[in-house]
């Protein structure tokens, strides 16, 4: 079904050396209100950097993770890497560690939340 599509995709990427769609990356960049315009080279570099980032994050999480034995990369590997690696700290908001409600309630008991904070 998607065989032809993937091939076309690869061809398209070869012309610019990137596989992510630059138009989409541009849209994300432009969603930032303070950005007025972006030249083509900056867009290319951001697109390429995003690809490198995806590779780097995946590999770091896999190597740090516990799933190496089972040959899997799981969400918790990513969340742990985000928290433990300095360069990935900016991801902790969108990659929170998951904890059980049971553990959370215990945590709340031990660390009562100040009403004023809420």
């Amino acid at each position, binding site marked *: 079904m998607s065989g032809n599509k993937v091939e076309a995709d690869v061809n398209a990427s070869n012309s610019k050396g990137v596989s992510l769609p630059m138009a989409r990356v541009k849209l994300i960049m432009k969603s930032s209100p303070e950005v007025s315009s972006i030249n083509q080279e900056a867009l290319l570099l951001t697109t390429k950097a995003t690809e490198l980032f995806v590779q780097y994050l995946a590999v770091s999480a896999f190597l740090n993770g516990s799933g190496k034995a089972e040959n899997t990369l799981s*969400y918790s590997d990513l969340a742990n890497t985000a928290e433990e690696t300095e360069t990935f700290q900016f991801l902790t908001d969108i990659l929170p560690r998951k904890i059980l409600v049971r553990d959370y309630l215990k945590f709340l008991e031990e660390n009562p939340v100040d009403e004023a904070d809420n």
Partner: protein
Amino acid sequence: MAERPEDLNLPNAVITRIIKEALPDGVNVSKEARRAISQAASVFVLYATSCANNFAMKAKRKTLNATDVMSAMEEMEFERFLQPLRESLEAYKKGQKGKKEASEQKRKDAKEKKNDTGENDKSRDDEEEEEERMEEDQEVENEVEEEEVEN
């Protein structure tokens, strides 16, 4: 283009392929992990853009350029990306140069042809621009299609 929230996601098929290519063969990536990496990539774009924009503002420029993005990578401590990025920029510039030469040649050919037929030069330029625009639109359409298949 209508801005829907999903427009700010990167195409899953491409993200999945990049992950697969980066990891050793046969590694299983959970669906949750793939979605998380994709979201992380969008946040990375925003973070890089914001850093690059600070450099552009400091230099009193309104347009983000290659130097701003490179400085942003350094500031974000992704120095490891600098070398591959430089290479990619070089390759891109070479490609652009080749493209420009090709289109100049095309224009020259067109001009010669025009002299034969007496056609208006300006209208030809307009036509070429129109073609380029159509190609861009085509690209966007393909993306949308791809995503629909994925979902």
